[in-house]
């Protein structure tokens, strides 16, 4: 095609875009991109939070009181060699007593001062990479020599890990649903608008317009709709996310929401590009299929 023709056809596409019928497709794209973005952002944040929380999961391995220094060192070595263990810290009997004092608070601490002998055992604090591996690791450590007993981190953390997993699965399922639904709707909406112009397409073919000539304005329209829809959606998400993350930082600072403006900007551009591709492919396919049927 000549450049001039491309210009003519593009201006036709823009003209046709201004008609109300295209609004539906833009809206559908906006809605789909919004839904996808919201779910993606939630999923990303949940993942990051989950990783942080899991990193904090610890096993406390209590040593028998009669453990020798040599045995202790051997034990530390074997624990470190277990895959999935990220950190091993030795807590002596004296340190354990201090820790208990701090736990009980100042007003109770005084009564340890005149303690005849320290009843608390020494321990290893073992950090593990993934919370769900903790119980396997505990089983392996329990069988080692010199180990008296093993305690997990607080129950709640383990529960949270389960809850997060549920959230991820739901988020993933909804994301898949939205993606499938969105592409079906977008392609159907474009099909509908092709259907509304079926006479026009037929006439163009009869006057001797080539497939590319007929396709081009639809593709440009699809491209513009895609960019427009995705652009609007990502602008909304961008602004809303800034506002929400500010608010969250104030309301629940410990959530440590992911905010990296460069990353967000890049994501927004990616979304717009995605919208453009969806628009082009969607409209091209619908019209092409329609042309094929026409023979």
């Amino acid at each position, binding site marked *: 095609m*000549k450049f*001039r023709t491309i210009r003519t056809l593009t201006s036709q596409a823009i003209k046709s875009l201004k008609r109300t019928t295209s609004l539906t497709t833009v809206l559908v794209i906006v809605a789909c991109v919004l839904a996808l973005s919201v779910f993606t952002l939630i999923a990303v944040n949940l993942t990051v939070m989950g990783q942080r929380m899991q990193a904090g999961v610890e096993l406390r391995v209590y040593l028998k009181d009669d453990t020798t220094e040599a045995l202790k060192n051997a034990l530390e070595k074997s624990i470190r060699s277990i895959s999935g263990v990220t950190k091993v810290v030795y807590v002596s009997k004296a340190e354990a007593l201090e820790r208990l004092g701090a736990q009980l608070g100042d007003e109770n601490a005084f009564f340890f001062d005149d303690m005849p002998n320290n009843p608390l055992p020494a321990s290893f604090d073992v950090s593990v990479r993934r919370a769900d591996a903790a119980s396997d690791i505990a089983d392996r450590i329990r069988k080692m020599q010199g180990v008296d007993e093993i305690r997990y981190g607080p129950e709640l953390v383990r529960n949270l890990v389960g809850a997060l997993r549920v959230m991820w699965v739901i988020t993933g399922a909804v994301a898949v649903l939205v993606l499938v639904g969105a592409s079906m709707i977008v392609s159907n909406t474009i099909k509908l608008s092709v259907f509304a112009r079926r006479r*026009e397409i037929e*006439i163009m073919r009869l*006057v001797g317009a080539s*497939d590319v000539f007929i396709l081009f304005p639809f593709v440009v329209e699809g491209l513009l709709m895609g960019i427009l829809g995705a652009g609007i959606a990502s602008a909304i998400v961008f602004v809303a996310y800034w506002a929400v993350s500010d608010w969250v930082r104030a309301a629940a600072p410990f959530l440590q929401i992911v905010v990296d403006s460069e990353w967000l900007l890049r994501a927004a551009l990616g979304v717009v590009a995605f919208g453009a591709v969806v628009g082009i492919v969607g409209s091209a396919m619908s019209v092409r299929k329609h042309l094929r049927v026409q023979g």
Partner: protein
Amino acid sequence: MYGVTKVYPGDVVALAGVDLSVEKGDFVFIVGQSGAGKSTLLSLIYRGATPTKGQVLVGGRNVIRLKRREVAVFRRKIGVVYQDFKLLPERSVYENVAFALEVIEAPQKEIARKVSAALDMVGLSHKANSLPGQLAGGEQQRVAIARAIVNDPLIVVADEPTGNLDPDTSAGIMALLSDINCRGTTVIMATHNQLIVDRMRKRVVEMENGRVVRDERQGMYCHEV
């Protein structure tokens, strides 16, 4: 110009073994009752339909064997006036006529010149910016005629081009078609207009129930005069 032809669209026998050949530069009237198969016959020429049996040769090429891409190129050499006009409803009269030139990617200047000339010929220069829906029936028909002749086609296929025109305007259009024909363009025209056919004294092909029942050089509309 084409060989044996037969068509059966659906269960309806629209053409039942038609043989017809038209020489380059001929002027042919196709006449016959409503439903006789005139439009179907014409649609085979511009490949609006393909025959169930038989072959159609146009300019030495077998029309049926054309590939998808070739069909578009082929149609650009044939100017067609459709019985139901087939104008693009959302484009102005000017754009509708220009469209036939845009598909061959003519320069903008040439398009402007040729479209103006064609609209002048059919007497519709003053309606260039109207939409087809804002035109009288006869005006729409003339836009369709202008579009058919604007890119100097080798063949003009006209299906009932004067059905919505008064005798004066019809005479003008017929003069136009004669003129184009004199410059070497083949004109094939289906019509019910007895006056026109009788006055022109060109070749007449009469059809009945999908068959050619009469084929006269310098014929009249009716069988027996």
